[in-house]
């Protein structure tokens, strides 16, 4: 049900009208908005159960100002470098999800993920169950089965193909079980429509250490939220430092000009 979009247009024909909107009307509208979110599969975060992912101002891009869990996120990756950056970003997210218990399942057909490296992103690598599916067509079946299981906290699936129908099945599975799914679409050529709640693209960018210090710094990514249901897409630069995300807001322009100089 949640995959149908309910378009409720609230008419503000004139500013005058807007001004006369009473407090009760505003209340009504906000409760209607909440209803729509609920129909679309979002659950309002229970009081005190807000999971802090440490994403800072990125949270404002999402409905209810909280990173949506219990939905399917889609990550687009064009090359192995982007897949690794995506892996790091997802690692940071699931380290928070796993704090509440539950299993984590990583489904893939051609897996390159190196478990010891996950330690750096706050995950005990032995907590993750890897499914190395020998047949490509079983990847989405296994993902769906895992997403249906309530004892699972997060499912990561590496796949190339995902059509609208398949993504809808996954979305329906998580609505019932409240498992968070991450679909990493590797070596993606053309983007198609899916029923996933959010679509991301994570690209690595040059790391920075203090001036004059040689070497490679902390992992730094350019995170783009290409699409999000009931939210506002945007793009940010994030860094993973001391087991948490740091939002980087600095002179990107200056850096770029130096590169092309």
């Amino acid at each position, binding site marked *: 049900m949640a995959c149908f979009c309910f378009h409720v247009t609230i008419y503000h024909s004139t500013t005058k009208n807007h001004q006369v909107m009473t407090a009760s009307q505003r209340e009504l509208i906000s409760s209607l908005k909440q209803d729509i979110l609920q129909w679309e599969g979002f659950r309002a975060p229970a009081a005190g159960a807000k999971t802090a992912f440490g994403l800072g101002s990125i949270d404002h891009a999402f409905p209810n100002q909280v990173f949506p869990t219990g939905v399917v996120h889609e990550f687009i990756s064009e090359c*192995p470098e982007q897949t690794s950056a995506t892996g*790091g970003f997802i690692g940071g997210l699931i380290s928070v999800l796993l704090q509440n218990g539950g299993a*984590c399942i990583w489904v893939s057909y051609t897996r390159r993920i*190196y*478990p010891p*490296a996950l*330690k750096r992103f706050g995950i005990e690598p032995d907590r993750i169950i890897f499914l190395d599916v020998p047949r490509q067509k079983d990847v989405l079946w*296994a993902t769906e089965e895992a997403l249906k299981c309530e004892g699972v906290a997060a499912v990561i699936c590496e796949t190339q193909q995902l059509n609208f129908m398949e993504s809808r099945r996954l979305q329906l599975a998580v609505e019932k079980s409240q498992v968070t799914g991450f679909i990493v679409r590797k070596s993606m050529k053309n983007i198609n429509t899916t029923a996933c709640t959010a679509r991301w693209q994570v690209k690595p960018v040059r790391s920075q250490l203090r001036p004059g210090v040689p070497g*490679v710094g902390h992992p730094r990514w350019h995170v783009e939220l290409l699409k999000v249901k009931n939210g506002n897409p945007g793009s940010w630069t994030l860094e993973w430092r001391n087991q948490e995300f740091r939002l980087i807001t600095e002179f990107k322009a200056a850096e770029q000009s130096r590169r092309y100089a």
Partner: protein
Amino acid sequence: MPKRYVSIWFRHLLTDWKAIRQPDLKGTAFVFAKRDRGRMLVTALSAKAAHYDVTEGMTVTDAQMIAPGLQVFDDKPGRNIKLLNGLAEWCLRYTPYVALDPPDGLLLDVTGCTHLKGGEKAYLQDIAKRLKESGYDIRPAIADTIGCAWGVARCANSGLIVPVGGHRNALMSLPPAALRLPLDTLVKLENLGLYHIGSFIHSPKQTLRRRFGKDMVLRLLQALGLEEEFLLPLKEAVPYTERLECLDPVSTRPAIENALETLLDRLCKRLYGEGLGLRTAIFTWYRIDGKNGALTIGTNHPTHRSSHLFKLFFIKLDTVAPGTGIELFTLEAPKTEAVADKQSDLWAPKPGADSEEVAELLDRLSGRIGNGNVKRYLPDEHYWPERTASPTTELQKKPASEWFSDRPRPIQLLDKPEPIDAMAQIPDHPPKQFTYRGKQHIVVNADGPERIEREWWLEPGEHRDYYIVEDDEGNRYWVFRSGHYSAGNTRHWFLHGFFA
């Protein structure tokens, strides 16, 4: 409950088998022979050959004299055991305890089994009919003791069903050959004029022992049930076994599913009553054409939930080939473990990785994608990157040591390092630029080297000097130089991983 045994005597085991394979031999005189000290001796003969008074141990030339047109085939040692094994497996549909009785018989412990076919008479008739239909000439007998059943099957003219407690009477009129005695003892008894067991059954045991040896007395006592005798069963019977006999042979998918469900319900109910859960289960089907097959499933934790077990079997149910029809299904649980009936946690926020739900999910997944493909990684005490994490299929296993985390490791590691064309300023410096898959990367930042020595006690080869490099686009790689720098060698740089 008194013990009941069936002895099946295959009168012409080998020749019947040959006639089944070559139907034109049926009803003709033919023998199996083996070479012995330069002549051919008859080892097995067909019913027709026996009609011409050919006997075992006769030379082939003699046999051909008395039986015109006698065909001779080479005998292969051990063939009868192979045949008996196959037949014994077929007989498992009658009782779980089947033992071989070389050279030409089978022994079945049928205690408590005969009611399945509606009584001992019907039971024996069913066995005889089915085996005769497939082409074997047999004589089955049923009695309280193995010895008595054996003797009656081979030597009695009638009364193949010895009633409970009637074995002593049945033995009375039988010749001593019914006691499974060696030939020299039989000759001795014959010379003394003891033509029936009844003639010496009342003699004092000491006398018999002195004259004929202790083996003869043992055989007599075993036949009388005064001495224990055990079968060596073909297959260890599983205590947790359920069987379902079909009134009519079934071959449709819903019928098979129904049978499986019924068996699972029964077995699970029994396991639940005893506080047990199964770890492996075998679902076996017996077809009316004598073939059978089995499906095996395994679970990650002991369970007695039939709906879950049904799902596990369901994934594999396509491989059941019913052929012309299945007449019997059995379900065994060879491996069971005590199951703790956990009280459900009301306050746990989310069940952990060892919860029942997750274990059941993984059972289902491994049923389809293979058991070895569901794994976790545990830290292993190695520095060599390929060996730092060792896979395990056990879900409950805890890591024995800490994860190594003092050095950055790439989030993606290639199974096999890929060679790159790299250029380094001076030997021990990171590369200034490298070409990977046709694309040139200019290195702007680098860390390293981190030398990792090869574990020479495991495999020979060069050490690796690893560098973390970052190119001008922000991509981070893990590259290494294999071995020491040497001017002539340009193919010693490899890319091994991608950092996040």
